[in-house]
């Protein structure tokens, strides 16, 4: 017991060089700047936040709205500015808060755009708000807004390592399932489209390659953190990181995620490694800084009880959230209950097709809805395979038709108070054939949103 306690204490409160944190801040700022800029230059602000007329909000966050063109542009402007400030270490605390709020707000607007790496960025930004990553190589110290610091308590760096570990290890655990290991799905399907890759394309024709990639990927995710933690093997580990993420970047349209991981894993390198970079930066930028180096850690950060409690709470939440799917019956890949926020990356190949019907509650008349009238192609695609989004869209349709009078082209007057909404949805998982996804008779307008089990999802008969 005392051994564990000691170990925990040492990894939380012993004094460590601040260098890794400084470098992490700078790289994070630069990466976020580039990825935000890329997002804007691709025109995605318009495509994802202006064009849609409806947004799939998260439960409890229905108040999050994209505003209008000016509102969302302002958000992105602030976001971009804060990334520059973070990289420069300028008004660091405010910048990280602004970044966290803007970024998280934007991500909360529409589930359609959920990506694990956005969630990762939100979490890192949240942590950075509490970390003294501006106490070196920053405008804040240069201008004397804050004092320089050589040392930080170990938790400031270890919590970031912990966060990386959570991402990899849970991604690894989620790969330990029958489809991934023994059917090599979905890679088996995906690799078959890759036979024209330069150099390695030849390999893609062998089924063996899919198994190799599947098992290799699972082992990599499970153990890479431990390799990176080891002084002797770190350099090999990092080589693996570059190869692994480099391969995924070449093969799949996953944007900046591989690069985010390649850069973020540098946090595992030794303080000396980071110090060398700090010295290199200082040699090129440093004039006499106005502040003395502060050798002791400030008293404010000395409240060890509170720090331990908060860290413990954060760690606990990070451990529980990805496991919440265990509380639901049924096939996780089919129902996707508890799927998001769980580091499940590239795990499933799923496609769907949904037709919605609004029924007159009394006379049995029903109208086929043209989804395109309400949703963008991307929204429609994501909605067709995810039950919670199907339900949300059904509710949106219900709201559109509640208490309406419609005069149709043949003069018929349709009077609706409480419409019934049903959906005929076909979904294919791992290319095993599309089949009915939810009970097409169930009146979705009466089903409540929530975290309870959705018993109107049909069994996957594969």
């Amino acid at each position, binding site marked *: 017991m005392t051994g564990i306690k000691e170990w925990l204490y040492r990894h939380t409160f012993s004094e460590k060089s601040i260098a890794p944190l400084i470098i992490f801040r700078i790289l994070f700022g630069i990466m976020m700047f580039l990825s935000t800029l890329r997002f804007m230059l691709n025109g995605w602000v318009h*495509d994802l936040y202006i064009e849609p007329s409806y947004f799939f909000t998260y439960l409890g966050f229905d108040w999050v709205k994209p505003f209008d063109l000016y509102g969302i542009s302002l958000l992105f402007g602030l976001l971009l500015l804060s990334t520059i400030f973070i990289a420069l270490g300028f008004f660091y605390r405010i910048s990280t808060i602004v970044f966290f709020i803007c970024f998280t707000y934007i991500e909360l607007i529409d589930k359609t755009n959920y990506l694990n790496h956005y969630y990762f960025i939100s979490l890192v930004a949240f942590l950075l708000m509490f970390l003294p990553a501006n106490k070196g190589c920053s405008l804040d110290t240069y201008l004397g807004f804050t004092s320089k610091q050589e040392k930080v308590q170990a938790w400031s760096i270890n919590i970031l390592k912990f966060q990386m570990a959570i991402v990899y290890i849970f991604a690894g655990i989620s790969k330990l399932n029958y489809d991934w290991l023994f059917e090599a799905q979905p890679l088996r399907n995906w690799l078959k*489209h890759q036979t024209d890759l330069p150099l390695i394309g030849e390999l893609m024709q062998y089924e063996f390659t899919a198994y190799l990639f599947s098992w290799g990927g699972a082992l990599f995710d499970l153990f890479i953190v431990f390799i990176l933690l080891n002084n002797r093997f770190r350099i090999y580990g990092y080589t693996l990181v570059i190869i692994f993420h480099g391969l995924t970047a*070449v093969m*799949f349209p996953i944007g900046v995620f591989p690069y985010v991981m390649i850069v973020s894993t540098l946090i595992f390198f030794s303080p000396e490694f980071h110090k060398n970079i700090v010295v290199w930066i200082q040699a090129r930028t440093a004039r006499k800084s106005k502040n003395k180096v502060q050798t002791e850690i400030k008293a404010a950060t000395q409240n060890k009880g509170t720090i331990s409690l908060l860290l413990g709470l954060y760690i606990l939440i990070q451990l529980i959230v990805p496991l919440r799917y265990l509380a639901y019956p049924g096939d996780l890949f089919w129902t996707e209950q508890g799927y998001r926020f769980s580091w499940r990356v590239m795990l499933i*190949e799923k496609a769907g097709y949904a037709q919605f019907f609004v029924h007159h509650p009394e006379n049995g008349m029903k109208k086929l809805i043209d989804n395109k009238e309400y949703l963008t192609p991307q929204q429609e695609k994501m909605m067709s395979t995810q039950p919670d989004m199907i339900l949300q869209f059904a509710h949106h349709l219900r709201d559109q038709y509640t208490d309406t009078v419609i005069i149709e082209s043949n003069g018929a007057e349709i009077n609706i108070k409480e419409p019934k909404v049903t959906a005929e949805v*076909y979904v*294919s998982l791992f*290319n095993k*054939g599309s089949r009915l996804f939810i009970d097409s008779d169930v009146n979705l307008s009466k089903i409540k949103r929530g975290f309870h089990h959705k018993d109107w999802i049909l069994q996957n008969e594969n």
Partner: protein
Amino acid sequence: MSDLFKIQSIMRILKVFLFVGVVLLSFSCKKRGCMDENAINYDADAQIADNATCTYLPFEKTEMLSNICDNYIVPAYTNFNEKNIALSNSLSLFSSNPTVDAFEALKQTWKDALLSWQQVCFLDFGPAAFVILNNQVNLHPVDTDVVNNNISLGVYNLEQASNNDAKGYQALDYLLHQPGMSDQDHVTYFMSNGNAMTYLTDVVENIKYWSNYILTEWTTSYQDSFKSNSSSESNAQGSSISNLVNGLCYHYESIIRKGKIGLPLGSFNGFSQQEMPDLVECYYRQESLPFAIESVSAMKKFINGESFNTPENRLGLDDYINFVGATQNSSALSSIINSQIDLVIDKLGKLNDPLSNEITTNKPAVTEAYSALQQLVPYLKVDMTSALGVLITYQDNDGD
């Protein structure tokens, strides 16, 4: 003691050997091997699946693209263009010598040209999608008011989108089959009405312009980029395969299934689902089914990689689907798609023209045909696109 000890240990070793032997024996009885029929090393005698050893012929995407380009798309557009030149020629004959015979010949060349359009309509990507070719040549229903207005004014610009529903084959359908007029009446009408004759000519020339445009686009620049354009990121958006699959799915769903049958049947008409028989294709000729059937049959040919002019069958989307091993209800997806298309053709074949009458007098049969058309949508849009790894990827995804 020591002897006993020895015997015991020998026994133990023997037991181990026995166990290993039994295990080896039980494995050697059942032959291990690749049990996937699509693999080149498929082992018919194998009893234990060892599918990790399966080896497949690499699927030559570029070879497939070359085949469907050289043997279907370009010949089909060439034929489409030739049929429109023939249409234009027979119109010249008619205008220089307006007889009932010449008029009937004109109607026949019009029908041939429209049938040739059905064979290329679903190639709704690349240059065709860029100019929205469907709206240029075959937007329906025709707006007869605009047609008549254009004729009486004698001033119009067929390049304007507002005239899209007053030109193309559907405008010709109206002009050549005006209600209550015999062939002789039509001849008289065009002889006496110079504006009408000019309009007829302009509409035909406009179609001919577009068929020439699309053929030229393909034969000059687009075919090379089409054949080579395989993105490294799978079949991501912008790759030829993604373009053609998305175009085909879109056209089938919106123009063939919905436009040709679903809309006139009333399936999309609000709560009352009131039939709208005048929305059928070629309403004025009172003949719609051959066109619908031709579009679906041609699509089948295309999916199967058949050549346009000969019955040869080379690499097509069906082979690609087989290569991936996609299934539906444990049958090969390619055969499911083929039999569903056959079912569609069969159901449409059981209907009688005029379709506009059939919709009101024999609605159950039309509904049955529509259901068959509808069932094909998920097979194409879900199963085929997912099998071919065609993603709608206008932004990043992490595969979940």
